[in-house]
């Protein structure tokens, strides 16, 4: 059993805990529905005119997916870490064979399952409600999984470095919202002031949205990275960032007081 068994035990407990919080389940899936209804409706009012939402519907698919891939791990991991700390669960876990990495991996698997379902819902809704014409690439699955790993790592850090559940949720909103709009999700880089570019390039979500766009909407003209196909290159960059944030996130989880 060992490592696999411990991750399985962690995942099973995490999944059961999640599905038994009815409001959490409802709003996890209701959030993207609202989002697409509002943004889809806005976009469809003026698909080719000026303003912020002037691109074709398919352009915004990475943005819709980014909402769940970014915010779900941020808020869930942030508050889960805070809840564990407040209930002395980490003190207990520190005296068992489970490692911090295994704990975070178990939580990441639960988040990946939730976000995969929400993403499927988003893709169905975005096509049905906005008429987006997208390519269904298997790379989308890879982006979602790697993105979840990346943002679960950051979510763990948010939970570890804030002192309460409230603090973790507030921090995840304060960091998540700017990231969402400064990562070429809904707003193209050209529409932002030039000095935003370094910040945009620092955001892991930028590589998620660029890569998803390259994979699902080839007409967007996503630039290649050092001559490599942008759908693959951005996945590679995101994967490197995911490893870094996962390791940092796992190390941030408290083992001692």
């Amino acid at each position, binding site marked *: 059993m060992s490592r696999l068994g411990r991750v399985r035990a962690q995942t099973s*407990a995490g999944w059961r805990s999640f599905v038994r919080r009815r409001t959490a389940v409802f709003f996890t899936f209701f959030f993207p529905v609202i989002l697409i209804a509002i943004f889809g409706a806005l976009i469809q009012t003026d698909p080719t005119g000026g303003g912020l939402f002037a691109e074709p519907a398919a352009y915004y698919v990475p943005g819709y997916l980014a909402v769940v891939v970014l915010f779900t791990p941020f808020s869930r991991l942030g508050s889960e870490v805070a809840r564990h700390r407040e209930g002395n669960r980490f003190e*207990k876990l520190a005296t068992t064979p489970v490692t911090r990495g295994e704990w975070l991996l178990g939580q990441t698997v639960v988040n990946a399952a939730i976000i995969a379902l929400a993403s499927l819902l988003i893709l169905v809704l975005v096509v049905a409600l906005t008429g987006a014409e997208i390519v269904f690439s298997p790379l989308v699955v890879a982006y979602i999984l790697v993105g979840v790993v990346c943002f679960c790592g950051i979510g763990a850090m948010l939970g570890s470095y804030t002192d309460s559940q409230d603090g973790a949720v507030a921090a995840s909103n304060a960091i998540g919202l700017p990231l969402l709009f400064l990562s070429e999700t809904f707003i193209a880089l050209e529409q932002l002031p030039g000095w935003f570019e370094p910040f945009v390039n620092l955001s892991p979500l930028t590589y998620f949205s660029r890569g998803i766009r390259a994979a699902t909407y080839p007409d967007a003209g996503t630039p290649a990275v050092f001559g490599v196909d942008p759908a693959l290159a951005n996945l590679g960059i995101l994967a490197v960032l995911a490893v870094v944030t996962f390791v940092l996130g796992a190390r941030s989880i408290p083992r001692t*007081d």
Partner: protein
Amino acid sequence: MNAVVEATDLHKTYGETVALESVSLAVDDGEVFALIGPNGAGKTTLVRALTGTTVPNSGTAHLLDESPTAVDRSRLGVLPQEFSPPARLTAQELLEYYAGLYDESRDPETVLADVGLVEAGDTWYENLSGGQKRRVCVGSALVNDPDVLFLDEPTTGIDPAGRRTVWRLIEDLAAGGTTVVLTTHDMAEAERLADRVGLLADGSLVASGTPAALVAEHGGSSRLTVEPTAETTLDEVASSGTLSALEYAVESRDGTLVFEDVSPADIGPIVDVLEDEGLEYTSISWAEPDLETVYLELADGEERAQTDRRSIGVEPARAEASTTADSTGTQEANPEGSQ
């Protein structure tokens, strides 16, 4: 006997607060060691230092001959003090979850039965009563059949019948060779379960030894306490010629008359004398000293000393010498001024 839990000169501070001061102790294989002491005495910090979940500022701790953070965790069971596991798992699922973290574990259903919760196995943790919750938490520390078990206030919030279930469980584990370190505010629990008891006060281990040795050393004598009716002037009675003629120390204390070092056979003659004196009383009670007497003697003394120091604006002084609890079952040292 080999010491499986060992602390040497542990110091731990949280900012200005001294949590542990020169604490040394050794717990032998298969022994049950109870830590008692007032709130904030350092019991939980000591358990954390011994289990590797806090890092002492200085001193060393060893668990099964290893550093606490390096020990094989499958041999260790820990119940933290204010532990709150995932609320929407059932009692059975919680034990399965914690059992799943070990390569080898006990059957969670058996553990559930051991803590007396078979009926509540399918109830979500958040819907259990306070005592049932604590029993599930105790169970979570037992799922791996540990060699060394740390229980930080295991019976807090548990009703008397449930408490006895947990006591029997701990006794069975000890009989099977498990080393147990527990903290408690329940002196009956410490007296019943512990081979040795350590009393922490203000971060220092002020006394340790077998319950009987501690009682003999610090408990004083057996006492007969007479509670007179309100009209009686105790000081006059205590100093009356007839009572003074008795061979017992008599004093008026907190509205009662206290006769020291009275054997059960002496109660009758004392009652006769009281009646001869015309003393009207509402109750008479006789008690042998117990661990609670020791606790009140040592811990209250320490607390009063602290209060006095604070009230005159003097920084708390520390015991000059560390107190060492070894495994001989005898008390090694006393706090200054604790007598």
